[in-house]
C-alpha cells in the first residue's frame, strides 16, 4: 500500500534543519502501523510531507502509494488517490457549514477519479448514518467546520471525514492529543469500524494509550528523523513502561 524509502526532508525556510533523515517504512493492505516517538522526532513532519503541505522539501528518497509516486502529486491528487490525513490540529473554516465542506470534498474526489458526483439525497443519508455512529449530532453537521468545536468534537469530525471519503491509506496524526478517555474510545471505535483488508492505517502517537484501543500490527519508534526500532504491539508497552530514553540510548 504505502512504501516509504530512505525519505529525507528539510524545512524549506531553513535548509539547515533536516527533519527526516532516511525514513523507511512499508505498509501492506489492511495493516495498522503505529509510529511512536518523542517530541521533535519528526512525526508530524512525516504526515505533512506525505500529504503534501507546503514548507518542506524532500531532498532524497521516495514515497509510493500503490506504486504511484505520492511526492509528485498535489495535495488534492494525493487525496483522490486514497490518502487521508487526520490532522492533529483540525483547521477552523468560519462560515462554511460542515456538511457543505464534506460534500464538496467527497464530490471533488469523485470528480477527480472520474466518478459521478453523489446526489444530495444519497450524500445526506450516508452522512447521517455515519455521523450517528460517531455521536455527531445534526447540529454539529450544520455548524461551520471545526469552529467552536471541543477537542473531542474536532477529532470525531476528522474521523467522520475519513469515513465519508473512504480512503485507502489513513494517517492519524496524534489523534489522541487533547482527548479524555471517553472521547478517545469514541474516536478509536470509529477508526476500528473502518479497518478492513483493503485499508491501511498509520497511527502517529506520542503515547501508548491510543494503541490500547486501536490495536496496531506493527509499532515503530521514530527518533531524530529515522525509525530506530520496529516490532509488535509489545514495543508500545515498552515505551509506556520505560519511556523513550532506553530505546534512544540503545540506538545511539
Amino acid at each position: 500500500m504505502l512504501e516509504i524509502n530512505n525519505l529525507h526532508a528539510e524545512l524549506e525556510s531553513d535548509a539547515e534543519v533536516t527533519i527526516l533523515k532516511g525514513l523507511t517504512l512499508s505498509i501492506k493492505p489492511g495493516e495498522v502501523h503505529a509510529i511512536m516517538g518523542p517530541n521533535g522526532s519528526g512525526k508530524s513532519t512525516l504526515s505533512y510531507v506525505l500529504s503534501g503541505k507546503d514548507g518542506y522539501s524532500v531532498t532524497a528518497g521516495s514515497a509510493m502509494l500503490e506504486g504511484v509516486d505520492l511526492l509528485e502529486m498535489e495535495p488534492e491528487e494525493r487525496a483522490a488517490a486514497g490518502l487521508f490525513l487526520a490532522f492533529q490540529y483540525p483547521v477552523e473554516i468560519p462560515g462554511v457549514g460542515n456538511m457543505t465542506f464534506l460534500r464538496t470534498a467527497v464530490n471533488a474526489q469523485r470528480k477527480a477519479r472520474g466518478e459521478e458526483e453523489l446526489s444530495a439525497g444519497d450524500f445526506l443519508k450516508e452522512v447521517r448514518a455515519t455521523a450517528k455512529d460517531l455521536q455527531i449530532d445534526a447540529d454539529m453537521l450544520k455548524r461551520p467546520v471545526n469552529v467552536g468545536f471541543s477537542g473531542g468534537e474536532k477529532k470525531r469530525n476528522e474521523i467522520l471525514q475519513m469515513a465519508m471519503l473512504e480512503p485507502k491509506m489513513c494517517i492519524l496524526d496524534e489523534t489522541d492529543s487533547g482527548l479524555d478517555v471517553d472521547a478517545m474510545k469514541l474516536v478509536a471505535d470509529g477508526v476500528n469500524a473502518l479497518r478492513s483488508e483493503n485499508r491501511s492505517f498509520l497511527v502517529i502517537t506520542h503515547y501508548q494509550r491510543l494503541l490500547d484501543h486501536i490495536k496496531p500490527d506493527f509499532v515503530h519508534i521514530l527518533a531524530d528523523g529515522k525509525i530506530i526500532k520496529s516490532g509488535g504491539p509489545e514495543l508500545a508497552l515498552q515505551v509506556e513502561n520505560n519511556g523513550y530514553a532506553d530505546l534512544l540510548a540503545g540506538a545511539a
Partner: protein
Amino acid sequence: MTALDKIEVKEGVDQDTVDAVTALSGNYKYGWETEIEMDYAPKGVNPDIVRLISSKNEEPAWMTEWRLQALTRWEQMTEPTWAMVSYPKIDFQDIYYYARPKSMAVKPKSLDDVDPKLLATYAKLGIPLKEQAILAGVEGAEDMPAEGRKVAVDAVFDSVSVGTTFQAELKKAGVIFCSISEAIREHPELVKKYLGSVVPQSDNYYATLNSAVFSDGSFVYIPPGVRCPMELSTYFRINAENTGQFERTLIIADKGSYVSYLEGCTAPKRDVAQLHAAVVEIIIEEDAEVKYSTVQNWYPGDENGKGGIYNFVTKRADCRGDRAKVMWTQVETGSAVTWKYPSCILRGDDSQGEFYSIAIANNMQQADTGTKMVHLGKNTKSRIVSKGISAGKAQNTYRGLVSMHPRAKNSRNYTQCDSLLIGDQCGAHTVPYIEVKNNSSRVEHEATTSKVDDDQLFYCRSRGMDEEEAVALVVNGFCKEVLQALPMEFAMEAQALVAISLEGSVG
C-alpha cells in the same frame, strides 16, 4: 406576486440557493400603502421649490444658498449613461420633490405625539417606533440579552423624518442622532463643516440634484473616544405616489470613536417608477471605526418591469485620520434599477476600507453596483467581496475601482467578485478598473490566494478540493460570516441569504 416559481433553473445551481432567491425576491412583502393625507410641494424642480423645501425645514440662509448653488450646477449637468442599465428617460419636472404627511405640519414633540397612522406603518414594517430593547420580528432576539441589543431608529417617511428613538439616552453618551433637518437647525457648526466635504455638491448628476432638494435624512455625530452604546439605524419608507425621495445622511465619527449603523428601505407596489436619489457622507477621524450596513429592499417592479424604484445613490466614506476604518456591507434585493457604489477614500495612513456586497436581481431588475477604493495614505488596506446573483431576465453588473496613488506606499487591495446566473436569460457583468501609481502596492485578484489562510487551504486540499475550489469555499464562508454579523433587525432577508451558495458560479 412576482413569481419565481416558473423560473428557469440551470443545471448545477444549488437548490438551496434557488429556494433562498425565491424566498427573497418571489413575493414583495412591503408593497402595501398607508392611506394618509399628504401635503405636496408642486411638481418639478426649480429655485422656488428649493426655497420651499428649505423654508419647510426652517433652514438658515446659508443652507438655502448652498442648495441653490447646487441647483444651478445641476441644471448644467447631464445624466450619466455609462452604467449598464437602461430605463425610460426620467422627466425631472414631473416628480414631486416634497411630500409630507399633513399630521407632520406641526412637529411632534415626542414619539407619543406622532400620528398613530405613521406609527402603525412602521409597526407593520416590523420597526415599531418605541424605545424597546429589540425590534420585533427578529428570530431568536428574545433569547438575547436585552443589554447591547438596543437599536435607535430614525424613521423617514417620504420627505420627512417622523421620529428618532433613544435620543435622550444617546445624548448622555454625547452621541448626536437626529434628522438632518434638525441637525441643520441645532448643530449648524457641524453640518457646515462636514456637509459636502466627502461628496461635493458637483460630484455627480444625482448627488448634485440631491444637494439641491434633499428634504431629510439622518445625522450622526460620535464624539472623540466614544463607543456608541447602541446600533443606530434609519428606516426609509416611500409611500406617496409620483414622489421622489431625496435623503441625505451625514455621519461623523470623531477620533477613536465607533459606531455601527444600519439602513433599511421599502416602498409600496406602484405601476409608475419612482426615483430615490440619496447621498451618504461618512467622515472617520483618527482611530475611529464605522460599520455601515444596508438592506435595500425597495419595490423592484413587477415581472414585466413595470414600476419599481430607481435607486441612484452616492455613498462615500472618508477615512480622514490615520488608522481610520470603514466597512460597508450591503444586501441589495430590491429596486428596479440600482446605481450605487459605496466608496472609501483611504486618506489617513494605515486606514482600512472594506466592502461586502450581495446583490440579487430577479425578473427585469437591473443592478450596476460596486465600490471605489481610493488609496491615498501609506499602508492602506482595502478588501472587496462582491456576489451578484441574477435570475429571470435580470442584469447584474459589478463595477469597481481600485486606485493606488503615488503616496500610498505599501498599500494592498484584495478583490473577489463572483456572479451566479440562475437561468439562461439573465446576465452578469464585471467591470473592474485598477490604477496603481506606485511600485510598492499590491492589488490582488480573485484568483490569487495569499490572503486566504494557508492552513485552511491545505486542509481543504488535503480533502481533495483543488486550489480554486478551496479558495472559493473559504472566501464564501468568510462572506457568510460577514452577513451573519449584520444587525438583523431589518434583515430577515439577510438570514435567508446565508443559505446562498455560489455553486455553479461563472467567475
